[in-house]
């Protein structure tokens, strides 16, 4: 059974059909590349999956049962995490503090609770080790590379029992070496059984890590096939509309 399934999902903004009858299934532990030109409906799709927008029509199923996610917090509760393009990190805080931001661990009794810095550093260190990233829990995020910052944002999704991580353009603004690092992080999420939806404009990255590729154009899904059965040329043609569907 797919982890997540969208059946015939639509989203209208007034007369504009941002999404038009999209059907999509995501299996546990698979990496799905989501591609499409600007305005193709990728962001809307991500917002629906992440609980930011309710769909105007169609069904949203998790583990085969229909759900209605009203907010990002509800989606997070179901194990669906979104890593935004700007990462939502506080530069002035340590990486451990960022991982636990809004979900701090405390100790004490009753209303007298203080931050448990040691426990948070320890847990953050464990998460970084799982992700095999050289990110130190004590370091301030402002001194970190783009790849390390990405690791902090991904480690944050590992705090809960995340089952699907949606990543919005994680490799858009970082160096080549850091891209390799982030792609390794994505593979590591798969090793741990988490499904990843990778939204990207970068063809090489998508062909490097993804198991399957979904192409959107004008609010419709125009292709959904295993990576081995397609090519960058075909995907480009699908994105631009030179090829209608595959």
């Amino acid at each position, binding site marked *: 059974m797919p982890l997540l399934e969208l059946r015939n999902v639509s989203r209208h903004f007034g007369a504009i059909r941002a999404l038009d009858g999209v059907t999509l299934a995501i299996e546990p532990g698979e990496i799905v590349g989501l591609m499409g030109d600007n305005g193709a409906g990728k962001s809307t799709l991500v917002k629906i999956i992440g609980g930011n927008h309710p769909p105007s029509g169609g069904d949203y199923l998790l583990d085969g049962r229909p759900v209605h996610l009203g907010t990002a917090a509800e989606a997070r509760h179901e194990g669906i995490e979104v890593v935004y393009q700007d990462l939502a990190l*506080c*530069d002035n805080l340590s990486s451990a503090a960022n991982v636990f*931001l809004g979900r701090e661990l405390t100790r004490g009794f009753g209303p007298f609770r203080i931050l448990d810095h040691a426990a948070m550093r320890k847990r953050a260190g464990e998460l970084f080790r799982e992700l095999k990233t050289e990110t*130190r829990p004590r370091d301030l995020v402002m001194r970190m590379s783009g790849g390390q910052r990405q690791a902090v944002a991904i480690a944050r999704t590992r705090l809960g029992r995340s089952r699907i991580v949606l990543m919005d353009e994680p490799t858009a603004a970082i160096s080549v070496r850091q891209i390799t690092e982030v792609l390794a992080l994505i593979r590591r999420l798969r090793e741990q059984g988490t499904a990843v939806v990778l939204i990207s404009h970068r063809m090489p990255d998508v062909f490097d890590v993804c198991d399957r590729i979904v192409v959107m154009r004008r609010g419709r899904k125009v292709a959904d096939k295993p990576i081995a059965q397609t090519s960058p040329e075909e995907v480009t043609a699908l994105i631009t509309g030179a090829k209608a569907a595959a």
Partner: protein
Amino acid sequence: MSTLEQPPLNVADIDSVLAARERGVVAALVHSQEVWILVAVLVIGAIVGTVAPNFLSGVNIANIATNFCFIALIAIGMTPVIMTGGIDISVGSTLGLTGVTLGLVYSAGYPFLVGVLAVIVVGALVGLVNGLFITYFKLPPFIVTLAMMSMARALTLVVTNNQVVYDFGPAQETLLALGSGKTLGLPNVLCAVIVLALVMQFVLSMTRWGRYVRAVGGNEKAARMTGIPVDAVKVSVYVLVGATTGLTALFLVGWLGAATNALGQGQELQVIAATVIGGANLLGGFGSAVGAVIGSLLLEVIRNALLLAGVNPFWQGLFVGAFILFAVLLEHVRSLRR
């Protein structure tokens, strides 16, 4: 600087990388603004002490130790405000308003504790109004507190009708004893500064609220997205600085023995200067209560030293301004290095 750096790590061993502290304790101290400002205070003290020996006399040191407290107390409250990226320039007027409130409450014959409650509540209310306008109407803190500065001062003039209050009724004795008395050999107000600074420092680094204050100053949008109650945190820092200002009025009026409507005029600038000199970043995200206290001490030492050295007091502002520039430059250089 190389002696302060850590030995190279075996990067192949990820555990050693993860366990590494970015800086040792000594290096962290060397990098902290508080320590450098404290060094500046000591250096100035030593130089002035040799030029004007009465600077280091017991009486003068006791003078300094009391005078700087009225800036330091408010600066401790200002620290979280500046850490969220905000500012409160109404504290001087709030000090005036709470000061005359205290005078009027006592001259009307109310007991001591009622006055204490009154200054804290009035101060907190001023902060609440500031905080609500800043968060719910999304107005810039500078403008909101500028308006409050004008309004609170006007209210001060209205309620006193330009009279000085020096009759504190039945509370007179307790109030004056609080203002000029000592506890364990230290002036009461200095004890208040020490206790409040330590409590604030603890709360800022060890509680959720402190973490949220830093987070809001670091990246407000990110804080909101992770579910931090950003608006409540912002309102709370203004309420807190208001209440601290009210508390300062209690000590200040007790020490002066009179409540005038000019109380606290221009003091907001000294408070902000002390906080910034002590390491708070006006862009938000960084600051320390202990630093704010040391910054206040520096301002008072400069003022006092110039006075004793016989320098025309008109020069004071120039030195204070120079130190503000110096502190901001120091912060700028440090931020370039990281």
